[in-house]
């Protein structure tokens, strides 16, 4: 065998990510989610045809990491901003990347209505059950009993209301075609999450309607856990409130095994 054909690149840095050091904490799910989005865009050859909207939240600086066009939205308004973009550039892949506070508290109206209009946009929804950026306050998705700086005794249904399952709520709307909940814990789950993101992008490019992938994502810093314990908490506790799996799939795609 000649030396020239001996090596083939099987793993590298995705082109859709800038070679930058992120500000995310060790063990944070945001870094993994970024990489998955980037890998999917690379594989679809869509980097130069993508416009993204980062949230206000820990991922507010995502435009420093993603290697494609991005415009920052005010807190919660990503899907309204994305609507404006998509209507001007219907041929581009438009995505929002949003935390639970952004998507399911302050931005609930924008989220529901963009989904219900069937905007051909994909939302990557990072559910870490807490307000990361502002220091661990209660999120709409904080689970019952979970401690937050504004629910120091743990979330109680009577006092704080119940955790919201926005993905299931969105599934009710005819505007949504594909919604899946995955977790960023084990290699197996992460690979599953990537498949879901791929499918959502594909459905958008096929013009089918609104797609969303919810990712249960560790926030070791504000959960006050080690990264390993944070993964375990998702796998054992968080999934009780947010069970993993396909919530809605009207794509009609046949899943390749």
């Amino acid at each position, binding site marked *: 065998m000649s030396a020239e054909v001996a090596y083939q690149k099987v793993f590298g840095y995705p082109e859709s990510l800038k070679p930058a050091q992120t500000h995310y904490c060790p063990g944070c799910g945001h870094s993994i989610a970024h990489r998955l989005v980037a890998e999917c865009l690379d594989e679809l050859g869509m*980097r*130069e*045809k*993508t*416009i993204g*909207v980062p949230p206000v939240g820990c991922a*507010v*600086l995502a*435009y*420093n990491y*993603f*290697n*494609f*066009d*991005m*415009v*920052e*939205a*005010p807190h919660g*308004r990503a899907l*309204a*901003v*994305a*609507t*404006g*973009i*998509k*209507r*001007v*550039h219907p041929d*581009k892949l438009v995505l929002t990347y949003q935390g639970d506070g952004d998507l399911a508290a302050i931005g609930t*109206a*924008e989220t*529901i*209505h963009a989904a219900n*209009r069937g905007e051909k946009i994909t939302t990557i929804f990072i559910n870490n059950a807490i307000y990361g950026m502002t220091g661990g306050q209660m999120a709409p998705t904080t689970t019952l009993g979970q401690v937050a700086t504004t629910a120091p005794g743990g979330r109680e249904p009577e006092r704080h209301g119940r955790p919201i399952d926005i993905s299931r709520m969105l599934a009710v709307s005819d505007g949504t075609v594909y919604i899946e909940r995955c977790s960023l814990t084990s290699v197996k789950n992460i690979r599953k999450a990537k498949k879901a993101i791929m499918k959502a992008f594909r459905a958008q490019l096929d013009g089918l309607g609104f797609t969303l992938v919810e990712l249960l994502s560790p926030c070791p810093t504000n959960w006050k856990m080690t990264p390993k314990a944070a993964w375990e908490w998702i796998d054992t506790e968080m999934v009780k409130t947010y069970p993993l799996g396909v919530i809605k799939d009207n794509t009609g795609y046949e899943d390749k095994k």
Partner: protein
Amino acid sequence: MPSEKMLMRGSNVVGEAAVRAGCRYYFGYPITPQNELPEYLSWRLPEVGGTFIQAESEIASINMVMGAAAAGARVMTSSSSPGIALKQEGISYMAGQELPCVVANMMRGGPGLGNIAPSAADYFQATRGGGNGDYRTPTLAPAGGQELAEMVFVAFDLADTYRTPVMLLGDGLMGQVMEPVVFPDPIDPASLPQKDYILDGCEGRDPRAIYSLILDPPALMEHNLKLQAKYDLIAEKEVRYDTVELDDAEIIVVAYGTAARIAEEAVHELRAQGHAAGIFRPITLWPYPKQQLRELARDGRKVAVFELSLGQMVEDVILSVGERAPIYFYGVPGGVIPTPADVTDFLHSALADDGKVGRRIEV
């Protein structure tokens, strides 16, 4: 080619002028008294291949505007007073991101829900921001009819030239009244100058990011100073105003928009009675024609400010005129529209300095 002369309601004039100025995107939420504008654009925009979306709120609509502006489009929204309050966050973001758009406000009575009658109580809201941060919103206040059509074109040009949100300030009366109008030459959006900052996918170039978050204080300071330099340039180059019979005037009425239309009748009446009265009508409320008004306030002339509010623009008049001339103020809030005779009474009172109608401002 300019259009034929058409008889149209003010709201429709704004809509048609926007389409002819090359605007193909409108996002808004219904509120009286400006619903005729979105209703008009809801059929007119699709006719020219444009997009109209009735959003779920004013907040959503201004953010859709932000997205479309980032994507490179000429885009507008409209609302009335309480709805504009909700758009202020987005306007502040767009000022920071240096994104262009036109926001029309057909003002109504306030505060709060107020009423739906024509008022002009949003002068502060328009000219002093309302959103957070050090920014300015160029604000055009046409007096209706033909000028309404022309100022829509000017608003889009200002927005694109300076990469800023621009406010078009009208009121419910202006929106409803039918007047003759000739539209300027239509603009093909494809013929507009290319923008080198927009997001359209980074094919063949580095990716772009549009944002207003600048965490490093010296860097944000630099951005603020850059914005300020732009506002200084706008203040230097874009001031607009109109005057009526000022040459020999012993009293200058300062009024804008609908109030100026009422004042014009009062001035004619006063002239018929032998008093030399004239009008100074700011068309840009920010930048305010400060210097121009200041230069006119001389030779013992009196300055009489008339507003459809309890006194907001009068603060800019005070800043312009200072102690160079006595300033009188007459304002009617709440959507009550005074008659020309009411304004005539005010001007007589100012001339006599008898305090019967309105009041003298102590500077």
